[in-house]
């Protein structure tokens, strides 16, 4: 278990800060946001998803969310786990796929009028050759979850199993992408609150 709290670290929240006090009102949420990070990125049972895979998927997800501090954090983790040679490909993937969301077609018949189109991104052959099929499929899935979660389907899961991920791996990776969607928004939300407090104190 780490001593650091990733969200505090990224926002430079120090003991005694007003945000430290705010976060301490929900001590279980604060502690378990960190435990969630540890469960995903310092797992007790690694299963079929390597630490490098985990860091790369998190770096991609946080970059799609445009949370650059968090993306930088996960990129550094990817380098630590030996995936430095994938970062250029990852940057290319972000550059061609970071759009505006959420969008997508509804499966519910009564919501058809609200369905909207948008990029259904799949990595091209060049990217796939650098990342490998397994990782390429997961990045496509992460993109689906970030931008058009309402278009998720059994077929999308099938394409992951098909690439060699196990059912348990798919659960882990789904949790990871979904968790980073939470973590990034906590960072974005608390950063705005922090700026507002600083303005007030000036």
């Amino acid at each position, binding site marked *: 278990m780490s001593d650091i709290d990733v969200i505090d670290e990224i926002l430079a929240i120090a003991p005694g800060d*007003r945000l430290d*006090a*705010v976060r301490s*009102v*929900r*001590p*279980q*949420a604060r502690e*378990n946001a960190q*435990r*969630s990070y540890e*469960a995903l990125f310092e797992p007790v049972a690694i299963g079929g998803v390597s630490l490098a895979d985990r860091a790369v998927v998190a770096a991609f997800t946080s970059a*799609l*969310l*445009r*949370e650059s501090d968090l993306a930088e954090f996960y990129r550094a983790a990817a380098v630590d786990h030996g995936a430095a040679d994938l970062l250029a490909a990852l940057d290319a993937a972000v550059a061609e796929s970071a759009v*505006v*969301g*959420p969008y*997508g077609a509804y*499966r*519910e*018949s*009564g*919501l058809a009028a609200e369905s909207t189109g948008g990029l259904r991104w799949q990595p091209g052959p060049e990217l796939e050759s650098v990342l490998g099929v397994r990782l390429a499929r997961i990045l496509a899935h992460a993109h*689906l*979850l*970030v*931008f058009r*979660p*309402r278009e*998720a*389907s*059994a077929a*999308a*899961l*099938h394409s992951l*199993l098909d690439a060699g991920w*196990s*059912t348990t791996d*798919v*659960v*882990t990776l*789904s*949790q990871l*992408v*979904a968790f980073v*969607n*939470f973590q*990034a*928004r*906590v960072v*974005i*939300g*608390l950063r*705005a*609150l922090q*700026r*507002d*407090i600083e303005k007030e104190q000036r």
Partner: protein
Amino acid sequence: MSETTIERDDVVAPERFTQESLGWVPWLQPLPKADFTDRHWDGVVDRQRADMPYFALLARDPEILRARTLTDNDIFYNTDGGAPRAERELAAAATSRLNGCVFCASVHSRFASEQSGRSEEVQRLLDEGVEAPLEPRWRAVVDASVALTRVPSAFGTDDIASLRAQGLGDEEISDVIHGAAFFNWANRLMLSLGEPEVPARRR
């Protein structure tokens, strides 16, 4: 073998957002109870959840399930200070409405109605979407949740100012942020690992 998706062609899907309770059908095989070890029981936190397909599926990775559940419980059920529970549920419902999670929206719109007694206003959010007319404090909570949910996020100090103008303090604002942020986690699991179903008794 569990390494395939579950295909069911008899699922009766809801047609739109609703406050009525829905079922949820997994697309991947939940962990059978017979295969649960102490680690998995610890992961589900509440043992009864092993009978619910969503939690039994997530139990395949028990450590993250446990931490997810404890995070969820504190954000929504800890009544020590912070925002009224109805407003945390409203943040969850608005987030689910924007992302398009009919299952999550059904649960949390119902909770928002129960906690506030304002079922009609909640129903407007479901029927008309996140731009539906709402009283000003709820408007500010929904706008903040929507801004935080969009990609890229549009959330900033203007949203904080709008929340403050409606009387929310630091702790209340933090609850709204966490309620919306958490449902950007929950929606993505619920939407991508299975689908909502109208329970047999209501067909």
